């Protein structure tokens, strides 16, 4: 008898996987288990538009009607607590048990905790819609927020908070913001945009102590400065949610380790999205873990195909974006794969940095500019990267040579 497909984690990845199973005409039971009380929803707006609006609303990936119409059973507000691999069963926190033929772990990631004493009710993290609502309640004009960590979540939140008239201080222990994955030349543009909007950015100074009395947070920096805020939002990265997989004895390696087809060390269990590490084909199988919306979406769909036996290998090039004020940054590929940079200037101050490996292979492209000024060329770069192309650096750098023409080469 068909036990069906069970998906643990009802975020972008899990939600897309459930829909994809039906797109592929799978007609057995599909069960989507999430620990949040909401429909599967898109997380990117939480630090962007949703935060700057008066009343944030959920942007659902699928409505109750769509889920019901496609016979996807969505169990919410429940955690998976154990996997019985031998019996092909998942035990849930409400005591119920789900049988599966194939299981997908799309458990996502969770904010990295700041390992300091003194954190209280006014020190928060941003991951879920409910987190966003709680933060939004403090973002009224004249309030002060401190953001610990100059990464994307923190900087996007800073931009949204400035639109609401909140005083913002960003504290980054590294010498500059966006140290991970963003070239210094582009981070500088973002840094300047924040300063122009009166965000105070403090780099290269660690936190010595935090005191949170429940109404106010005092952050003492190692250099002697003290930041006082009504709310501290901590955005220092994320860690993959692997507890369930580890307890089931699956291999963990910077996330749930999967092969190119997103299979874990158990052939009937797949993992996809933020929670897994996988061999990135475009860089010769280098094992990576990505925390990105598009990756979650693509891997969710790929996992669905492979749960049905397609045996297809992951081949996508990493891609992500960030919006801050009127600027959009887009990066395809991982820039740390490159050793040489070629700059291409576009209109309106926008530019793209092409990252080339030693042998001339294009491995990444990072762009920033107003609106969607870099989008088209970043997309073309992504196709070149996927083909392992070795475009002439002069052509990449010349605004008069269309990138599209390099694809034909």
């Amino acid at each position, binding site marked *: 008898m068909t036990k069906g497909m069970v998906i643990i984690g009802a975020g972008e990845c899990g939600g*897309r996987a459930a*829909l994809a199973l039906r797109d592929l005409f799978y007609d057995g039971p599909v069960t989507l288990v999430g620990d949040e009380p909401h429909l599967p929803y*898109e997380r990117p707006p939480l630090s962007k538009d949703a935060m700057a609006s008066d009343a944030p609303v959920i942007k659902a*990936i699928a409505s109750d009607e769509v889920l019901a119409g496609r016979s996807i059973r969505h169990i919410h507000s429940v955690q998976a607590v154990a996997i019985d691999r031998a019996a092909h069963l998942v035990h849930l926190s409400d005591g119920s048990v789900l049988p599966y033929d194939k299981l997908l772990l799309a458990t996502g990631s969770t904010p990295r905790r700041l390992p300091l004493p003194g954190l209280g009710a006014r020190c928060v993290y941003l991951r879920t819609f409910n987190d966003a609502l709680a933060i939004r309640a403090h973002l009224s004009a004249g309030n002060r927020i401190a953001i610990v960590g100059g990464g994307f979540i923190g900087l996007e939140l800073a931009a949204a908070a400035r639109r609401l008239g909140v005083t913002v201080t960003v504290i980054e222990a590294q010498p500059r913001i966006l140290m991970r994955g963003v070239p210094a030349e582009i981070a500088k543009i973002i840094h300047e945009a924040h300063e122009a909007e009166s965000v105070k950015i403090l780099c290269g100074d660690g936190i010595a102590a935090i005191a949170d009395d429940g109404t106010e947070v005092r952050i003492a920096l190692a250099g002697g400065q003290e930041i006082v805020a009504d709310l501290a939002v901590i955005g220092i990265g994320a860690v993959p949610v692997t507890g369930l997989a580890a307890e089931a004895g699956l291999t963990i390696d910077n996330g749930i380790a999967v092969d190119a087809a997103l299979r874990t060390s158990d052939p009937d269990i797949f993992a996809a999205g933020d929670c897994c590490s996988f061999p990135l084909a475009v860089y010769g199988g280098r094992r990576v873990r990505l925390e990105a*919306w*598009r990756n979650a*979406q693509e891997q969710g*769909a790929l996992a669905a195909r492979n749960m049905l036996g397609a045996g297809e290998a992951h081949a996508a090039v990493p*891609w992500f*974006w960030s919006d801050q004020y009127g600027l*959009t940054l887009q990066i395809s590929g991982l820039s740390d794969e490159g050793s040489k940079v070629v700059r291409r200037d576009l209109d309106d101050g926008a530019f793209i940095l092409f990252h080339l490996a030693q042998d001339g292979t294009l491995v990444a492209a990072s762009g920033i500019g107003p*609106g*969607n*000024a870099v*989008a*088209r060329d970043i*997309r*073309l770069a992504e196709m070149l990267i996927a083909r392992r192309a070795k475009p002439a650096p002069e052509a990449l750098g010349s605004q008069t040579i269309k990138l*599209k023409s390099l694809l034909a080469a």
Partner: protein
Amino acid sequence: MSDWVEACDAEDIDEEDVMRFDHGGRTFAIYRSPDDEYFATDGLCTHEKVHLADGLVMDDIIECPKHNGRFNYKTGAARGAPVCVNLRTYPVKLDAGKILIQIG
């Protein structure tokens, strides 16, 4: 029936490319296909209202510049996540080197 509106010169758009056209408070996207035909759709992606004219045209597909939602610009058909609502299309004709679209 509504009138035909002049949008641009045919030569304003490269082959396999797209251009934005605003008219009467609305925004449209006008396409020139690789086989040199012209098409028009609503200008904003049905996912998050992003201008499609900043996106990439490949064959008969326009890809949203923001989240890579894909549409067939000849038919308006949505081609997978994150877009699920089709784009509205409009009739196009060429007249003396000008592109005209019929805005319904």
